């Protein structure tokens, strides 16, 4: 913006000089070197802050040095071997991977990833980001509230369940300044199509930019990112159950009887990768993504496939019966079936009370199950929807205590806030909204919590209420509560809560 200072206004030389001086001060800043020096110093100062005592510091340094040495001896020969043999552990040690052929890799937490031919996956801060190609994951049981997250283009795929695949199409759909040869270095304007399909468990796809959940996929369902050419941003959430297999392919589809798509063929990406990229060459590696996905030992059971087929055909009672049979067994399929029973009862058969009972049964049978968080959330949402506020609040408070790190925490806290507010209990609502604000996403929950918190403060006669409403207006100038917030910011009591 052009500097146009408004004070001092006088036409005299002193005013003009003062104005110029203030403008100059406004534009005065450090040079790049100063900033870089500063960053180096800050980065050093904030990292070792935990070691305070000289004794412990010295001991820590010695121990670290010993561990590093021991680790080096242990890792060095392997590292050399890994580069040539494609040993799974290589994935966890590298920043970026390119697989000329399919590769099976073990990531942190025992997550197994199978990279398709020429797939490119980067590990950023311990989390994988798929740049191109197909990667199939097998995620072992995780602690509730600690989902495994994979990034692909502008999407976050949050894994609640066990086995799924992601395909980032190498063909660029957007405008890449005339380059449409299928190569990308990740810095073009073009966006690539992303596909997700689920073999077992539950996977959620989120828009990384807007923090909106776009889809929630159950076994057999798949999801494709919307056409980039058709719309600039990802489309709205489409989480309706899939239609029958004979119907035209929707964005989320259920092909229960067809095997997963084979890995697509991509150009080698070695030329486009940065210096830190590690190329794995493994002539001995045999299992491709498609082979692995269709191996009999790991394929979904016949009952679960039949249940999905029955659901797709609209035969919910049959699906329920199959899931109940499956739930009698053991292993991931039985656990998954235990959760699905509640889902079928709630969504297909309109029996919310029985659904809640089924999810509670699942919870009792699998207290640390993969779908524990999902079961909790489903129970809370169902209770709230059916008007059982007391139970919903009790469950929500339990959830907030039990899952301090859950990604669903903000949504549940916001729901609890709304329930408290509906009962006129603004004090508890405030505490709940505060939790939502601490979680920072999803955006719509945070926006609602920001506004309702202000409304509650005003209702309680707190002097910070108007400020909170102004803060809302500032943060969300075209937010959905703009009108009411304006009233509150102006000192009115508004219609809330």
């Amino acid at each position, binding site marked *: *913006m052009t*500097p*146009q*200072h*408004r*004070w*001092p*206004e006088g036409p005299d*030389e*002193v*005013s003009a*000089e*003062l104005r*110029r*001086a*203030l*403008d*100059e*001060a*406004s534009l*005065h*800043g*450090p040079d790049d070197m*100063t*900033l870089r*020096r*500063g*960053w180096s*110093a*800050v980065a050093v*100062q*904030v990292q070792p*802050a935990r070691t305070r005592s000289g004794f412990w510091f010295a001991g820590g340094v010695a121990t670290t040095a010993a561990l590093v040495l021991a680790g080096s001896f242990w890792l060095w020969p392997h590292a050399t071997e890994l580069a040539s043999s494609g040993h799974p552990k290589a994935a966890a040690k590298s920043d970026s991977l390119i697989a000329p052929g399919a590769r099976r890799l073990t990531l942190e937490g025992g997550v197994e990833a199978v990279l398709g031919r020429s797939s490119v996956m980067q590990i*950023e*801060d311990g989390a994988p980001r798929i740049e191109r190609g197909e990667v199939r994951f097998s995620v072992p049981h995780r602690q509730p509230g600690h989902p495994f997250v994979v990034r692909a283009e502008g999407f976050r795929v949050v894994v609640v369940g066990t086995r799924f695949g992601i395909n980032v199409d190498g063909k660029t759909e957007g405008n890449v300044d005339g380059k449409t040869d299928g190569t990308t270095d990740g810095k073009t304007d073009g966006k690539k199509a992303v596909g997700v399909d689920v073999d077992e468990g539950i996977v959620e796809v989120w828009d990384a930019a807007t923090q909106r959940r776009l889809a929630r996929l159950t076994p057999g369902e798949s999801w494709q990112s919307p056409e980039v050419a058709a719309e600039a941003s990802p489309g709205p959430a489409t989480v309706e159950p899939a239609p029958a297999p004979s119907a035209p392919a929707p964005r989320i589809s259920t092909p229960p009887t067809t095997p997963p798509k084979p890995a697509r063929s991509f150009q080698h990406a070695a030329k486009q990768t940065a210096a830190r990229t590690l190329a794995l060459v493994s002539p001995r590696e045999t299992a491709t993504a498609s082979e692995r996905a269709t191996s009999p030992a790991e394929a979904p059971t016949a009952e679960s496939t039949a249940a999905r087929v029955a659901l797709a055909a609209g035969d919910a009672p049959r699906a329920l019966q199959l899931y109940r049979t499956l739930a009698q067994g053991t292993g991931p399929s039985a656990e998954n079936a235990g959760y699905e029973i509640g889902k079928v009862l709630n969504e297909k058969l309109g029996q919310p009370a029985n659904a809640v009972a089924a999810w509670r049964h699942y919870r009792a049978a699998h207290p640390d199950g993969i779908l524990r968080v999902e079961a909790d959330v489903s129970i809370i949402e169902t209770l709230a929807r059916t008007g059982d506020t007391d139970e919903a609040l009790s469950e929500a408070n339990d959830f907030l205590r039990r899952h301090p790190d859950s990604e669903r925490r903000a949504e549940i806290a916001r729901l609890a806030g709304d329930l408290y507010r509906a009962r006129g209990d603004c004090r508890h609502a405030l505490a709940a909204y*505060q939790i939502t*604000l*601490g*979680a*920072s*996403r999803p*955006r719509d929950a*945070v*926006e609602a919590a*920001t506004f309702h918190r202000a409304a509650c403060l005003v209702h309680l006669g707190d002097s910070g209420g108007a400020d*909170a409403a*102004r*803060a809302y207006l*500032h*943060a*969300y100038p075209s937010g959905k509560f703009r009108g009411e917030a304006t009233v509150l910011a102006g000192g009115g009591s508004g219609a809330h809560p």
Partner: protein
Amino acid sequence: MPENPVNTPGLMRAAPSGGSLTADLDMVARCRRGDSVAWRGLYDRYAPIVYRFLSAFGVPNEDREDACQEVFVAIYRSLARFRGEARLSTWIYRIAARHAGRISRRRRVRGLLSTLLLREPPPPPAPDPSERSERLQILDELMSKLSPKKRLVLVLFEIEGVPIEEVAKIAGCPENTAWSRLHYARAELMAMAKKRVR
């Protein structure tokens, strides 16, 4: 914002505001989780602002770089306390202002002790002609005669372009008090400038 141009913040720059409240919260949350990319992003966004603010607030050249680093270390250690009730820029300005105040007090005490013990006046802050023009040096000299409270409000509003409601939050005073301090700071600065010309 009042329509009166005298009540319009200097330059009306968007830089101090940083991102939206949600973006700020997200950035802070990522920093708390140890996301080094987010932390670097926060530094890149706010370091020039903090540096400029310290400079305008009278932190001498030889102390400025260290002060800026200390502010960021303080920010890093206080991230857990950022609740998102104010904008991140407001919160950072508050930390920087507190730090600049401490440096200023430290210099005053050091000067006083030097005078008492050594019976010779402390050396004046070293000018940095390579960086700052003569005009800026004169402005510094004039503003150094303002009280710290008035200088803080003047710097934030006239140089940093921070809206008065945010200025009040940073200074920890009611808005009316901030307006009042700004009014007197402007008047004093103008009077000193005119006196200097004469």
